[in-house]
């Protein structure tokens, strides 16, 4: 183990790099901004690697802890630490940032420095969310993340970007503010903002339920769960490719992660009490949203709905309270991070050439872009949960976990294997196969080396984790058992 504050570095290296990129100023220095951003994102990824290499796999508690007094008036600490659930997500974040910087390389031509800087800063902030162990520190990162995302969608987004980005911001803020009230309540009970303190604190059931609802408002919006998902299709459709990738790959995971970090361990009895509701909402997301995805005309919208449906699996896995479900949910989060990034990047590749996201405008792309189509089909298969891809592992584990609880949960959940295949493959058929329908498609050029590199990296990861998911499960195993053990014991005050 080194003595370096690895988590602080993981947070601040990208943020400082982002500020440096901002300093390059106007678009006259665009190429400098690009290279600086690339260097920053590589450095940002490099500093997170020790989190994996030095991780103690047997330890289910928090590692790499850092604790400094910050605002003594309210007992707020700059307290960082990660467990087996946070580390894979942090690595996913820093990796995705690298991908996003690369993906925006030539595509973004206006205000390049601000674009790159937004993503770098956002990356640091999101790593902060994953590693904060103080409620206020966490809250600050959680909210601060909205600012760069708001700008990214608003500045580089599509025609309806203003509506989408304001909706995104206000929707997410609504939930977060109630979470803040819950934090303040917990603070007055314990005189501390330390999350681990909250884990130990006994709470009445009705208090737990209220706290759980406050957290639910924050996290369910972010994940997003049905019925508070409506901001996501808008935001995804209007966001530039990089914005969609970060939203789908990481921002949604912030919600999932936070359920595991806050709602469930702080209010375990309420989680059990409300698990029926949560499972119902998750299953509605899995089945109903998959049907909604089936009828989409817009590729990005289709992937957005598919994301919601897949995140339904994640919340389903959480509230089964068994190791299979929980580990499956975590694997699903990571895998969805790769697959949804790849899907959005694929749409981005087409959009950059055709400036259309409508499925009807395409057809027969395989004839002009064979290499690209190979990738696109692979990612589509992964999205549909084909065995051998990472998409399969998570879904399979969650379904196995669901069988242990209730056959019908598992039955409904597994319909996604049919619907998921249906909407994804139908899109593939309409976009990539068939006759070349129009001259625009006929004029398409296949992907260049930069795009090949991005999609290739993601393809390796999707296949790699599909065949060998152990790195994730090994890492999460100890934490998951500890969490389930904690969840099994009641926190109700003994009379």
């Amino acid at each position, binding site marked *: 183990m080194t003595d370096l504050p690895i988590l602080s570095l993981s947070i601040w290296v990208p943020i400082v790099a982002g500020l440096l990129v901002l300093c390059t100023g106007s678009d006259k220095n665009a190429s400098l901004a690009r290279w600086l951003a690339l260097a920053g994102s590589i450095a940002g990824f490099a500093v997170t690697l020790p989190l994996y290499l030095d991780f103690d796999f047997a330890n289910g508690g928090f590692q790499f802890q850092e604790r400094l007094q910050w*605002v003594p*008036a309210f007992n707020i600490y700059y307290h960082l630490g990660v467990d087996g659930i946070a580390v894979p997500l942090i690595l996913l974040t820093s990796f995705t940032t690298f991908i996003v910087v690369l993906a925006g390389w030539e595509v973004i031509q206006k205000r390049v420095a601000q674009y790159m800087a937004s993503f770098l800063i956002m990356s640091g902030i999101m790593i902060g969310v994953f590693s904060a162990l103080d409620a206020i520190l966490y809250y600050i990162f959680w909210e*601060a993340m909205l600012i760069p995302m708001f700008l990214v969608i*608003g*500045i580089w987004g599509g025609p309806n970007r203003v509506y989408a980005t*304001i909706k995104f911001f206000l929707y997410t803020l609504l939930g977060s503010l109630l979470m*803040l009230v819950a934090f303040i309540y917990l603070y*007055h009970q314990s005189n501390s903002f330390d999350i681990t303190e909250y884990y130990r604190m006994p709470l009445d059931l009705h208090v737990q339920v209220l706290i759980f609802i406050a957290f639910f408002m924050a996290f369910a919006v972010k994940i997003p769960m049905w019925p508070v998902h409506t901001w996501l299709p808008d935001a995804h459709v209007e966001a530039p490719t990089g914005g969609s990738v970060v939203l789908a790959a990481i921002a949604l995971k912030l919600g999932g992660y936070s359920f595991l970090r806050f709602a469930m361990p702080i209010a375990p009895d309420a989680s059990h009490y409300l698990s029926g509701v949560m499972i119902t909402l998750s299953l509605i997301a899995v089945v109903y949203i998959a049907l909604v995805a089936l009828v989409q005309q817009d590729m990005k919208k289709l992937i957005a709905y598919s994301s919601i449906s897949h995140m339904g699996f994640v919340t389903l896995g959480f509230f089964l309270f068994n190791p299979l479900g929980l580990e499956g949910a975590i694997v699903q989060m990571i895998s969805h991070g790769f697959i949804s990034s790849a899907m959005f990047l694929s749409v981005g590749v087409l959009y950059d050439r055709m400036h259309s996201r409508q499925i009807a405008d395409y057809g027969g792309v395989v004839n002009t872009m064979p290499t690209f189509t190979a990738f696109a089909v692979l990612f589509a298969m992964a999205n549909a949960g084909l065995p051998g891809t990472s998409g399969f592992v998570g879904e399979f584990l969650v379904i196995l976990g669901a069988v242990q609880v209730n056959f019908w949960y598992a039955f409904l959940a597994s319909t996604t294997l049919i619907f998921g295949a249906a909407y994804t493959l139908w899109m593939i058929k309409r976009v990539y196969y068939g006759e070349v329908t129009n001259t625009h498609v006929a004029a398409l050029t296949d992907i260049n080396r930069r795009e090949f590199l991005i999609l290739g990296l993601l393809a390796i990861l999707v296949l790699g984790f599909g065949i060998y998911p152990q790195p994730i499960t090994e890492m999460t195993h100890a934490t998951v058992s500890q969490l389930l053990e904690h969840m099994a014991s009641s926190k109700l005050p003994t009379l």
Partner: protein
Amino acid sequence: MNAIQYDLMTALPEILVLCMAMFILLLDLFLKPSNRFLIYVFAQLTLLGAAVLTLATHVPAVGYAFNGLFVDDPLADVLKLGVYLSTSITLIYTRQYVALRGMFRGEFYALILFSTLGMMIMVSGQHFLTLYMGLELLSLCLYALVALDRDNPNSTEAAMKYFVLGALASGMLLYGMSMLYGVTGSLNISGVADALLSGAPDHGVLVLGLVFIVAGLAFKLGAAPFQMWVPDVYHGAPTAITLFIGSATKIAAFAMVIRLLVQALFVLAVDWQGMLVIMAVMSMIIGNIAAIAQTNIKRMLAYSTISHVGFLLLGFLSASLNGYASATFYILSYVLMTLAGFGMILLLSRKGFEADRLEDLKGLNQRSPWYAFLMLIIMFSMAGIPPTLGFYAKFTVLQSALQAGFVTLVIFAVLMALIGAFYYLRVVKYMYFDEPEDHSPIVAPVDMKLVLSINAIGLLILGMLPQRLMDVCAYAIIHSIQ
């Protein structure tokens, strides 16, 4: 040191400001227009001197002077320093603006200094008459300042409205004070508090008096349902004056709330808590919802002020030292944000162009990324989004209200903050998402650019390291209120 010496020593900053204000008034008569710059320098030196004197005479204890008419406690010192700082920043931001509009005259600076004096007296008032005198000194100067651009019909109208409503409010306050005097037999704040503690004489009359006092204070603070003058005056007054009314004077009004409600009428806390709840709720509703419909930034910021006052009142609800400290923190944060916000409008304005419509901010990010970034910080700070000072301001008042058990009210407040976020986001939208219509360069003196940058970046830095400011507020409250 005998009593007279002590009295004079205690009021030394006030005496300095008074002398200098009169000096500037005279000096102006003998100065050639080309040397008017001296007046500005003198005004700034006066504020600096007052700050030095305040710091030099500071002791962490309460001291009464002039037979209990005047008090010098740590709270007064902290708030006075706030007044000097915001007035000084106001002068920096407004120098170019007033010069371009023919208002760069002795009267402007003398009136500003006289209002500063009024605020200092309000902050240190320990007697109903002292408070009232300070308030009237401030108000009369403000009426004149609003009307200073006398060829502008909007300003004249605003001044008239301000005067009529302000006089009404003063009348109410005075009426309430007279009732309290009738019941308690004292005009002194400690005297009233003692009389109330030793057994409430006539609760009915007391509460009636309290209603008038609260109404008068609400007028001065701009809390609903007494907020009517705020948008019109903010909009009609020259931006330089709006900046002044929106920042420093709020500190003085805040001090008056502390002196009257907390120090004199603490025994009636249960009664005024109820009134403040209603005012807080109404201010947050009116402030946040009406702001959405505005197209003029000054008007929008006026409604934003009303909603901020609603939040500020939350700090008083807990009737605890923690609550007052958080309210002090809120008011100082609010003043810093307002200074920066109006400072930005002043920066963008130029001769014959006020830059006070929301559209005038269009594409600011392309015109000047730095100032757009600063305005971004200011707007997010006003909306209470971390990591800015506005977040901790809202956080402290919310936690104090929650501690006192106002759960529903706190949830209501955060929902209102959500609505409020919308119109701040709209400003960001104009700056970042729209193309500029106006490509003229931003011209401003270097000192203004520098101070404005420090002011706005300060919101970010204080948002990350708020402890110092919190300590100061807690210190001021703990050593001043028994």
